Every structure is written in structure tokens, then in C-alpha cells.
């Protein structure tokens, strides 16, 4: 804690300590490029065409075009629709984007004739809610997808193969890896491909230097490429060591080898690269996207990416990032919508960031969900990381959204990780790349992250990678090794993936491979036009998403109670004997304790884990300590705390009684009060201690003496106590309610505390 400043509301101290305060919030400053949308320096949309030649675009004359303007003017602007597109009212077009009666195709057709400034102007009219809706409508493929980052801090191929296979099990459609040490690319790629094969054949890529990445692709060791980076200013583009023409050539080269590609751009990149020309983030990204369409890329990975944290620091930054992704969809590009960079230290901001994307669904909701621990992510921590996979699963389940992932069970996870490690070990041995011991295998199979593994030294990994590269090994060699060693399913899967290159089906927009089949915007187009249309989760899929690990139900709760009864002998710690119908007492300081129907009959401990006998013994002791006389009755007509308490009070000689539920909720009541107007209540049984029960008993007794004792306060530290307990509490209460006998009168019980009870 910092030293306290005098006369300052100390809530500011509290706020200062929140993880959120590790984030930076930048003031808007267009001259510095710190402007999410609509910088005063952004151009006004314009387009003048003379014959087939564009002589002015967005206020710039042809002779003043930079290379990006030229490329967009030549290859993006569709001459057939340009005039119509540029004269369409931007607000009207924006409204059409959220109108379910206007087909996607109509919007896409006109967007191809829009300049970057026109596109930016259109998006200026859309709120975050409208953008989210537009994304759902404009996504190119009907079914949403998701991509994983699978990397580790040691570039350990054994961990990588196991984690790649696990990512496939979770449901990721694509797996992207990269390296800590550049020369390790070949080892990472080979391991990743084997992992992808064990998972049934998801698409895989290794992000490294452009030319090296193409070499991996040629060897069959990656199935797609994503790092074809595009920038919105000429200077940034050149600093990226490329031009739109070199990049257009590169993606054509990939296509010629049957390798899927998507470009990468993202708001904030130009700010980080120091050449934003005072333009807004969205306008610069509009230029990037027009270049990508112009090049003939089937899709993009955009939405901040490495620039996401700086974009998120701007006012309206989150909306801008969403707008970028929707713009990609409007331009008919496959959209892998970022969400691959930790934009905040605040878990609340992280959860908020993902929601529009999860609600809308994009072609890839995350273009790199870190399926590994944050520290193992060689791209830097993702928005979501391995630690938070189940948080994401819970969001899918809460809002019934298709986020692409599903819960996994321990046994199937062990199976697939073991298979993956064994498969890679076989390949390494067959190809004489390395010998792998059982200890190394076990270490990778069970490790959550590289801090727990003990496999190769960094030097050994580099030697493996060098051997693969120098010997010119390809995926064909991997297939042979797998086949020879009996991994026929994996050999089959990899051959099938390789063979798909020959057909070229997955070069088309938004293609993924599911169950060995190519699904893309061509054979699975998004036809969303309102409720009942577009992608709908099947019942079977929904049941998978809903099946959160360790879910509880009535049977499991009751089973646990039965086990408690059997094992801890909680039941046998007191002996209760019925003494017949309970009458109204006369002793002036009598306190009657009314227990519920299931108390120590079906349920034997409180939600805090105290044996009923111990609770009762403490209350008895407290009553006696306070100068009262305890008497125990069981009430059958209700299990409600207030009515238990009131009924007990009405049987009590002092008029004070205690109601006690099986789950541990307790109340002091007085006979003349209204049912829910009690004297004292312990509503939070899971944090109520034995001593609290003792003091409750004492207070009841002091009340019988006409005193007003200090109420017993159960300290509460603000935790989500109900989220933790309410399911079990409700199910326990349902068991109680099931034992109610509305016609039965209270009976008096004698109690004998046995050996081992009490504290």
C-alpha cells in the first residue's frame, strides 16, 4: 500500500490497488495517432473516375497517391458499383447493415465499391450493439470457429505435440505456433502437425519470418499461413519489409502450393510503428482491409492483434476493434477476429472484451486463444489463456453461445496427450532425430506448462530442428514413420490433409476442416436473416457445452450426504428419542429449538461441514450459559427457517425459540412476531462456526431474561458465497422439503450426546 494521503476518500486507495490500475488509459490526441475513429485529419470520402482510371480518391489526386492508394485504386475499387456505392448515404447503408431484411450479399456488393474513408464513415454510424449484430449477419461462414495458440517457453516438441492434440480435443479448428528461438521452427512445426493429426486433423501453422514460413509450408509442415502482414501507411508497410505487390505475389505463391493464407493487420500497428500520419485507427485499418481484398486474400486476422492493447487504451478503443472485424466481414473476407492479446490486467475488462465476439460469432472468434499457460505463450499472453479455458466455457454455457470449445474430461485428456507424445516419440526415433525416455514422456503428458517439464535442453531442440531442415524432411517422411510404427490413424489423417492441397478446396474463403471435410463460405455460407435462421446450435452440441465439469445434481448431493452419514458417523454422535407430541412449555427461561424434518435424519451436517450433533450441543451449551433451559422439538409441517423458529417460539415457555434447518441456517424467533420478522438470523450457514451457534443459544436465553444482547454477527468477507453454495443449498433444501408432512404435529425429542461429539 502507498502511504495514505490525508483527507482523501480511501476508496481511491482501494481503486489504486486494483489490477485495472496496471492498465494505461490514453487521452485522445489525433496528432499523435491516438484517435480510435474519426480523426479530424481523416479524409472526407471521395472518388472521381475518368473512364477506367481513378483520378481522385478520398481527397488525394492520383499524382499524389502513395503505394497503398494506388494498390487500392487499381485492385480494390470495383468500377461496376463504385458510383452507386459512393453516392449511397452512409447512415442509410449503416442501417441496412442491421436490417435483417437486407441480405448480406447486397451489402457486400456495394462495399466493394467503397473507398477506405467511405467505409470508415459508414462504421462511424454504428454503435457497439449494432456492430455486434452486423457481425452476426455479415460473417462469411455459417458456423463460427476458433483458433488456438500452442507454444511453450522451451520450444519443447513433446509438450507442443501434447498441447496441440489437447487443443484439438477442446474444439479448436486451427492451431498456430511460433518459436522462442527462430531456428526451432522446423521442430515446432513437425510436432504441431503430429499433434494436429492426433486430434483428428485440424489446420496448423507456424508463424515465423515470411520466407521461412513458406519453406515450412512447402515441406508440408504447415497447412496455412497467417503472418502475411499488411499496414495502413506506406512507411509502416515498407518497415515491414514488403509492399502490396510483394505480398500479393507471396499469397499467390502460397495458393500455388495449395496452402491457405490469410493476411494480418490490426488497429494500433501504425501507432506502434510510428507512422500513422495523424489518421484514426479505424481509417488506417480500412486501408489495410482494402489492400487485403485487393491482393485477393481470402481473409484476414485483424482486430487489434499486437496493437490491441494500445487501441484498447483509447476512448472507444473496444468499439473500434469490433468495427475493424465487422468491416472485414463486410468486405467478404474471412475474419479471424483478434482477441489474441491480453488487453488488460483486469479480468472484468477481459471478459467484457470477448462478449460482443462471442455473441456475434466470427469465422475465428479468437485468432489465437492461448490454450497453454500465459507464461508459455510465445506471442505474449493472449486475451484468454490456458488457465482460463473453463471461464470461457462458462460464458458459452451462460449465454448459450457457440464459442467453438467444449468441456473435456480427465480420462480423454490423458488418453490424447499420451497418444500424441507416443506418436511424436515414434517419429523422432524412426527419423533418428532423438531418443525419448519414458520419464520425458511422462513429464510432457502431465505438465500444465513448461515450468513442470523435464525433457530436452534448448540446445537439443535446436539440433533436432536443424536436422529436420538440413535433411529436407517433409510431412511425407512423418507419414511413413507414423505408419511404420502403427499410428495408422494419424498417418491417414496427415495424408488426407496433404491430399486436400491437391483439391484446393480449403483455399476458398473461410475454409476449415471438420471431420476430414472442408467447410467454407462456399458450401456453408452464412444466411442469417433473423430469428430461426443462420447458425443454430444442435441439441447434441448444446448438451456438450452445458456439461460443465463437476456439475452437481440432486442425486450427487444426496449421495454425498449418505456418504457423510456412513463415513464420519455424524449421525451417531447424538441419540434422539421421540417423547411424543410436543406441548407448550411453562418454564420462564425455556428456549425451544425446533429442528426441520430432515435434520439428522436424511441430512447430517451443515453446509459448513459441522455435524448436526455438534451444532445442537453448542446451542444447548449457549442456552445454559445464558441462564436458559433448552428443549428440543422436531417440526414436520415446514422446513422454512422462519416458520421453524416461530413454531419453536410458540412452544417455548419464554416465548423465544430457535429454528434450525438441516443445512445449518438458524434463527431466533419470538412468539408474537410475524413469521418473517425474526429476532436474529444466521443466513449464511456455509460460514457459520460452532461458536456462532453457541452464542446464538446464549442470546436466546438472555432475551428470555428481558435483556437486549448484542446480536451475533457472522463476519463476511464479500466472497461470492452464493455462487459457491447456492446449488448445493437449494438441492439440500429440496431434500428437506421432500420430507415435510403437513399434517404432522411437532414431537418432543430427548437428546443424548455421544462420545466424540463437540469440539
Amino acid at each position: 500500500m502507498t502511504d495514505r494521503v490525508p483527507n482523501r476518500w480511501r476508496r481511491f486507495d482501494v481503486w489504486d490497488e486494483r489490477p485495472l490500475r496496471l492498465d494505461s488509459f490514453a487521452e485522445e490526441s489525433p496528432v499523435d495517432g491516438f484517435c480510435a475513429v474519426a480523426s479530424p485529419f481523416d479524409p472526407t470520402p471521395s472518388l472521381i473516375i475518368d473512364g477506367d482510371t481513378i483520378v481522385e480518391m478520398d481527397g488525394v489526386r492520383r499524382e499524389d497517391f502513395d503505394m497503398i492508394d494506388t494498390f487500392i485504386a487499381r485492385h480494390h475499387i470495383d468500377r461496376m458499383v463504385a458510383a452507386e456505392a459512393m453516392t449511397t448515404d452512409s447512415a442509410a447503408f449503416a442501417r441496412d447493415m442491421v436490417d435483417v431484411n437486407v441480405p448480406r450479399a447486397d451489402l457486400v456488393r456495394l462495399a466493394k465499391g467503397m473507398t477506405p474513408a467511405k467505409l470508415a464513415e459508414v462504421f462511424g454510424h454504428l454503435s457497439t450493439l449494432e456492430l455486434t449484430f452486423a457481425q452476426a449477419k455479415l460473417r462469411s461462414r455459417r458456423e463460427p470457429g476458433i483458433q488456438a495458440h500452442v507454444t511453450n517457453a522451451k520450444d519443447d516438441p513433446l509438450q507442443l505435440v501434447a498441447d496441440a492434440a489437447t487443443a484439438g480435443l477442446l474444439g479448436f479448428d486451427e492451431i498456430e505456433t511460433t518459436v522462442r528461438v527462430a531456428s526451432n521452427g522446423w521442430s515446432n512445426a513437425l510436432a504441431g502437425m503430429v499433434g494436429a493429426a492426433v486430434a483428428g486433423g485440424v489446420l496448423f501453422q507456424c508463424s515465423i519470418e515470411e520466407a521461412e514460413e513458406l519453406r515450412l509450408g512447402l515441406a508440408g509442415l504447415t497447412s496455412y499461413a497467417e503472418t502475411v502482414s499488411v499496414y495502413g501507411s506506406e512507411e509502416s508497410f515498407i518497415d515491414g519489409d514488403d509492399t502490396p505487390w510483394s505480398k500479393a505475389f507471396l499469397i499467390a505463391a502460397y495458393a500455388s502450393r495449395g496452402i491457405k493464407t490469410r493476411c494480418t493487420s490490426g488497429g494500433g500497428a501504425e501507432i506502434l510503428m510510428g507512422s500513422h500520419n495523424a489518421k484514426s485507427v479505424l481509417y488506417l485499418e480500412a486501408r489495410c482491409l482494402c489492400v487485403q481484398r485487393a491482393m485477393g486474400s481470402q481473409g484476414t486476422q485483424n482486430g487489434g492483434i499486437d496493437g490491441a492493447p494500445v487501441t484498447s487504451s483509447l476512448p472507444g478503443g473496444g468499439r473500434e476493434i469490433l468495427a475493424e472485424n465487422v468491416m472485414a466481414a463486410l468486405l467478404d473476407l474471412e475474419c479471424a477476429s483478434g482477441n489474441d492479446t491480453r488487453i488488460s490486467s483486469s479480468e472484468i475488462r477481459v471478459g467484457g472484451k470477448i462478449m460482443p465476439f462471442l455473441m456475434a460469432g466470427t469465422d475465428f472468434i479468437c485468432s489465437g486463444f492461448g490454450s497453454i499457460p500465459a507464461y508459455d505463450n510465445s506471442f505474449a499472453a493472449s486475451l484468454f489463456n490456458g488457465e482460463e479455458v473453463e471461464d470461457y466455457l462458462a460464458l458459452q454455457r451462460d449465454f448459450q453461445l457457440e464459442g467453438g470449445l467444449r468441456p473435456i474430461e480427465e480420462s480423454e485428456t490423458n488418453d490424447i496427450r499420451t497418444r500424441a507424445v507416443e506418436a511424436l516419440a515414434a517419429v523422432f526415433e524412426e527419423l533418428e532425430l532423438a531418443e525419448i525416455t519414458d520419464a520425458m514422456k511422462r513429464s510432457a503428458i502431465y505438465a500444465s506448462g513448461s515450468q513442470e517439464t523435464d525433457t530436452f535442453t534448448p540446445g537439443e531442440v535446436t539440433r533436432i530442428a536443424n536436422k529436420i531442415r538440413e535433411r529436407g524432411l517433409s510431412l511425407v517422411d512423418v507419414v511413413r514413420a507414423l505408419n511404420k510404427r502403427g499410428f495408422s490413424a494419424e498417418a491417414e489423417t496427415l495424408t488426407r490433409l496433404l491430399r486436400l492441397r491437391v483439391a484446393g478446396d480449403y483455399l476458398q474463403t473461410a475454409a476449415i476442416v471438420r471431420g476430414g471435410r472442408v467447410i467454407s463460405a462456399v458450401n456453408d455460407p452464412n444466411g442469417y436473416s433473423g430469428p430461426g435462421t443462420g447458425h443454430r446450435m444442435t441439441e447434441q452440441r448444446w448438451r456438450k457445452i452445458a456439461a460443465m465439469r463437476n456439475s452437481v445434481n440432486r442425486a450427487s448431493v444426496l449421495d454425498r450426504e449418505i456418504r457423510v452419514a456412513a463415513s464420519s458417523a455424524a449421525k451417531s454422535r447424538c441419540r434422539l428419542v421421540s417423547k411424543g407430541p410436543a406441548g407448550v412449555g411453562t418454564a420462564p427461561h425455556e428456549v425451544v429449538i425446533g429442528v426441520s424434518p430432515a435434520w439428522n435424519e436424511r441430512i447430517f451436517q451443515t453446509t459448513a461441514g459441522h455435524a448436526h450433533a455438534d451444532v445442537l450441543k453448542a446451542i444447548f451449551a449457549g442456552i445454559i450459559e445464558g441462564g436458559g433451559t433448552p428443549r428440543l422439538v422436531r417440526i414436520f409441517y415446514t422446513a422454512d427457517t422462519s416458520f421453524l423458529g416461530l413454531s419453536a417460539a410458540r412452544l417455548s415457555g419464554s416465548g423465544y425459540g430457535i429454528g434450525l434447518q438441516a443445512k445449518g441456517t438458524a434463527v431466533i424467533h419470538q412468539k408474537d412476531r410475524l413469521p418473517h420478522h425474526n429476532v436474529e438470523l444466521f443466513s449464511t450457514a456455509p460460514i457459520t462456526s460452532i461458536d456462532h451457534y453457541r452464542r446464538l443459544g446464549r442470546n436466546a436465553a438472555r432475551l428470555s431474561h428481558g435483556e437486549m444482547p448484542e446480536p451475533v454477527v457472522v463476519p463476511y468477507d464479500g466472497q461470492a458465497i452464493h455462487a459457491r453454495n447456492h446449488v448445493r443449498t437449494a438441492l439440500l433444501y429440496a431434500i428437506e422439503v421432500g420430507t415435510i408432512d403437513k399434517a404432522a404435529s411437532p414431537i418432543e425429542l430427548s437428546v443424548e450426546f455421544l462420545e466424540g461429539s463437540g469440539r
Partner: protein
Amino acid sequence: MSAVKYPLSENMPDRIKSATGRRYPDLTVEAVATGDAEIADFQISRETLAAQAEIAAGQGRDTLAANFQRGSELISVPDSEIFEVYELLRPGRAKDADELLSKASYLRRTYRAEKVAELIEEAARIYAERNLFRRRY
């Protein structure tokens, strides 16, 4: 290829051949295991990529179709030359427009790579205008 139906791998596998002339259904794990198929046999053919261009154009994706068209022209270009051309197109690599123009005519002449040649020729003009022939390192 006429009357193409997407996905080709499902609708007309018998009509697909790889760049080396191997029939799609023959590219099996057995063929790989016995050494009958090598990595080169898994390259898409000029005809098939042109068919994918046709499919893309039919979907209104004119620029994607143009990319596939360029790709189809590069199929018989060896890997080493692919890397060479890519390198030459990066900023500051070619010393002048002529170097790019002669590469374009070489590709046109040798590989019938008309659309690729046009792309490189356009680059030559723009690089000259934007002074992109100066060496950066």
C-alpha cells in the same frame, strides 16, 4: 475443367490430378508408405487451381479469383525461383525497374505467367514513382 462443383474433393475426386499428374484417389497413405508418392505429388495442378478461381469468381469474389489465377501460373515455377521473385519484389531489393521488368518477361515467357507478369510490371512502375528501389540495408 468444366461444370465444377465445390468441394471438388467430394464431388469430383476422380477428375482431380496433382501437378505431377497423380490422380487424387491414388494419393493414399499406402502410396506414401511404399514410396510411390512423394511430397511433390501433393501439389495442386494449374487446372485445379484455375477451377477454384472459377468457383471464387462465381461467388462474386473477383479479387480472390485473380489471386488463384496468379497462383495457377506459379505452379510450375520451382521453389527456388518463387523465393527469388518474392525477394526481388521486397522494397529496396531490385536496383531499378528494368530488373523487375526483365523478371516479368522471363516468367511470362517461361511459365506462361501472364497475370503474375502484369503484377510485377505494375510494381516496377509504382516502385519507380515511389522511389522504392533505394536500398534500405
